[in-house]
């Protein structure tokens, strides 16, 4: 009895969640002029100048954000565990704070700060990196914290130092290789967050991929839908790769999950 | 307990895919008796218990309690109290409500529930903790509460699934004695599963040694120790030396000494005798063929390791006062006391 019920429920959920994705694929390959199928919308991802540029901007932002996040967060978290234990709760609180403060609120108050940033660094959309690094903190923190908690950090570090390694060597050649799954997890999730971020980019006037998708949406439905589907598929592939690579994790949910707080949707 | 009952597991087989967890396993527990099931991980002891409890179903075979076949009886109607290895107390209930849980399931009124739960807590010595929650208790206290909870429903059979394995060594010994005390006081038929042979020998009326889904030997602890029926039992319970032996009609010759053999030994010819360390006699001897390699102090007893002329390692157990006389390198002669041994077939072992 439960078996049948389960099968039925799976079917219903499957339809509800997969049908829109199928609809997207259908919509995006529709030839509005001649009827039938066309890949024109998909070709536009490369062919359409503005869209292609937006894709590059978003990818560039993703890479920069991951780099910045790793550069700031990994040493900080290691240092907190090894030397500055008193700061542990503070760092955790600050890292999880972006989940409680809606992106919309941040962008409303961001004007003044970004006046300075654009003054110092110019008008490029890549300056969004700073804010994006803050936005991905909760996800990255969770992933790296889990990885750090799974190894005996203190012992590893002390062993390395007692054998003569300096701090840089210790961090890069001893600790980092051991928390690789956490770093990878943080990186992939950050990429997904950045690629989907719309709120701050649009209200600050930068042309990232999601912003462009919405702009085109009014005039060229199929291309927007194609780009949206591509974003979703890309995120999905990233997370699947992550799940396969971190196979040894006991709780598969932990690696891809948001810490249990709100505004998990990066909207 | 008014009327303790007998438990019969008849020819149980449990197959998972290609794995045979139980293979024709049979066990009879006398009313009021505590039987320990002892064996390495994967030997089927927990499977047997779970089948008895109704939490698992045998592929074939019968379970009887007090003569009655329990095959069709669901787990929640079998009237057995079970203590799990860990984590089985309900975290959202305090100690008293945990203990009273089974009574609540049976529809017992609140006042009576609490009175009986209190009674059980007195029995395990935790009456003062009745309002605490699980995370405020130590491991040992949690298991005592689990025991009280299992007994509160006045079950006919008590099942203990490795109840001490998750505890610290010192707590383990204390709790082990407590469980035995309570079991004897109530007189309930009990099945105790463990992989720790010291625990099994200390606590049980009879011990059943299991291996690969089968029962190798079922006997009182002393008998099991002194007269193991199979090589597996001899090796699993207590320590053994494996010494070359020659079996003839009258017994065996081991290291030049005549030693009687146990039934189940090789009938004649060469073999390996399984000799307990306390049956090995070490004497200082200038002309001795053996040399002491090390002496290990264990408290009241010590272990003396020696190497024979042919390279075989022997370990002997002596009172520490005697062992004090030996130093590594001392020449000694080794003799074997005429205590019955099991002789198993075999070429020279990989290690002693």
């Amino acid at each position, binding site marked *: 009895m439960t078996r049948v019920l389960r099968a039925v429920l*799976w079917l219903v959920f499957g339809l509800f*969640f997969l*049908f829109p994705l199928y*609809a*997207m694929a*259908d919509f*995006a390959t529709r030839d509005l002029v001649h009827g039938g199928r066309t890949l024109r919308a998909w070709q536009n991802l490369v062919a359409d100048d503005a869209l292609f540029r937006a894709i590059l901007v978003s990818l560039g932002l993703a890479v920069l954000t991951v780099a910045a996040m790793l550069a700031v967060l990994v040493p900080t978290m290691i*240092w907190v565990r090894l030397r500055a234990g008193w700061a542990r709760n503070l760092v955790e609180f*600050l890292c999880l*704070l*972006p989940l409680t*403060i809606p*992106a*919309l609120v*941040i962008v*409303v*108050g*961001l004007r003044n*700060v970004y006046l300075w940033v654009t003054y110092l660094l110019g008008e490029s959309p890549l300056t969004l990196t700073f804010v994006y690094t*803050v936005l991905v*903190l909760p996800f990255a923190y969770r992933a790296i914290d889990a990885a750090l908690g799974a190894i005996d950090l203190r012992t590893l570090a002390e062993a390395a130092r007692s054998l003569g390694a300096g701090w840089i060597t210790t961090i890069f050649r001893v600790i980092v290789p051991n928390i690789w799954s956490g770093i990878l997890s943080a990186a992939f999730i950050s990429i997904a*967050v950045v690629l*989907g*971020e*719309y*709120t701050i980019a649009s*209200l600050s006037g930068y042309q990232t991929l999601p912003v462009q998708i*919405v702009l085109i949406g009014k005039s060229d439905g199929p291309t927007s*839908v194609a780009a*949206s*589907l591509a*974003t979703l598929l890309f*995120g*999905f592939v990233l*997370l699947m790769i992550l*799940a396969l690579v971190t196979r040894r994790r*006991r709780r598969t*949910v932990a690696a*891809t*999950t*948001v810490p*249990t*707080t*709100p*505004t*998990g*949707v990066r*909207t | 307990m008014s009327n303790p009952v007998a438990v019969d597991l008849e020819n149980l087989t449990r197959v998972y895919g290609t794995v045979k967890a139980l293979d024709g396993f049979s066990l009879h527990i006398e009313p009021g008796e505590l039987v320990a099931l002892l064996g390495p991980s994967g030997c089927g002891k927990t499977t047997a218990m779970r089948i008895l*409890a109704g*939490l698992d179903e045998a592929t074939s075979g019968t379970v009887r309690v007090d003569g009655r076949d329990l095959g069709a009886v669901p*787990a*929640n*109607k079998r009237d057995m109290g*079970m203590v799990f290895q860990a984590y089985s107390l*309900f975290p*959202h209930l305090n100690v008293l409500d945990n203990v009273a849980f*089974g009574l609540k*399931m*049976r529809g017992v009124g609140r006042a009576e529930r609490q009175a009986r739960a209190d009674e059980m807590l007195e029995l395990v010595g935790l009456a003062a903790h009745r309002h605490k929650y699980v995370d405020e208790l130590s491991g040992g206290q949690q298991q005592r509460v*689990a025991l009280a909870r299992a007994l509160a429903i006045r079950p006919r059979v008590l099942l203990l699934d490795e109840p001490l394995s998750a505890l610290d060594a010192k707590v383990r010994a204390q709790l082990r004695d407590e469980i035995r005390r309570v079991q004897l006081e109530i007189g309930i038929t009990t099945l105790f599963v463990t992989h720790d042979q010291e625990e099994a020998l200390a606590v049980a009326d009879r011990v059943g040694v299991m291996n690969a889904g089968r029962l190798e030997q079922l006997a009182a602890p002393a008998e099991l120790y002194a007269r193991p029926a199979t090589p597996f039992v001899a090796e699993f319970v207590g320590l053994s030396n494996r010494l070359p032996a020659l079996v003839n009609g009258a017994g065996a010759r081991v290291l030049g000494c005549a030693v009687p053999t146990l039934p189940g030994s090789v009938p004649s010819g060469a073999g390996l005798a399984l000799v307990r360390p306390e049956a090995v006699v070490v004497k200082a001897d200038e002309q001795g063929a053996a040399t002491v390699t090390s002496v290990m102090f264990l408290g009241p007893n010590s272990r003396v390791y020696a190497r024979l002329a042919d390279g075989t390692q022997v370990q002997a157990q002596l009172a520490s006062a005697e062992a004090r006389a030996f130093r590594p390198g001392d020449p000694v002669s080794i003799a074997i006391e005429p205590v019955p041994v099991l002789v198993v077939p075999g070429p020279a072992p990989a290690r002693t």
Partner: protein
Amino acid sequence: MAGRSVGRRLADGAPLLPFFALVVIFLLIPTGTVVVNALFADGGFSPARLGALFSSTALTALWRSVLLSGATALIGAVFGAVLAWLIAARPPESMVRRGVLALCSVLAQFGGVALAFAFLATVGLNGVLTLWVQQLTGFNLAGSGWLYALPGLILVYSYFQIPLMVIVFLPALEGLRRQWREAAVSLGASGRQYWREVAVPLLGPAFLGSVLLLFANAFAAYATAAALVSQGSPIVPLLIRTALTSEVVLGQSGFAYALALEMIVVVAVVMVAYNALVRRTARWLR
């Protein structure tokens, strides 16, 4: 002595500076700016900006936001719990399970704009489903433009609320130890008694906490609504958009600050409630 330990602390804290600087400049200062500008204008405490929150536009938007968030929180919680139950029943290393969880992650956290277009492609004016239904029955599914108003938002928000519930609630479900069920059963509990006396009390706080989480999530969500609704401001986030981008009425930016403050307050209240609810009971299901 005290000086030395303070000095030591500062030295130990120095490597943490980049992190703190980042968070202060790009998170705390903007938040502070919002709070300050909502309460103060032209150098003094100005209740006028807060007063604007009680205008009919603002109150209607607030009410609709609450309705949207509440409805999708409940829908998401109930269906998400069912889906989580389905997933928990699968073996831990199964590919299906990983795939489903990855999909949930994508939809719940990174979907935003894409989800809006997913539904436009399905039940929009030229949506696949719209066209099918039209061909079969002649009925125009998208006729009234409901997709671009509250009913549409409820549907699309559910599409990410349900997966979010799965992500948030699944750990709690899996934290329900097998030993509890077996202990309950061996003590005489029937299936129904187990659920009533053990599973529900243990899962209850986690479930309610998840409802609160989903509420805050929906309340703060922007991208999906912004992509779906190009004109008008039925809910608070869209009202903020209007306030920020509107060139028509001067002084609108003050309104944006006040609305943003309102948002902080609502989410903060919900989060405090969530923490109070979950703090003691989360330990049970670790």
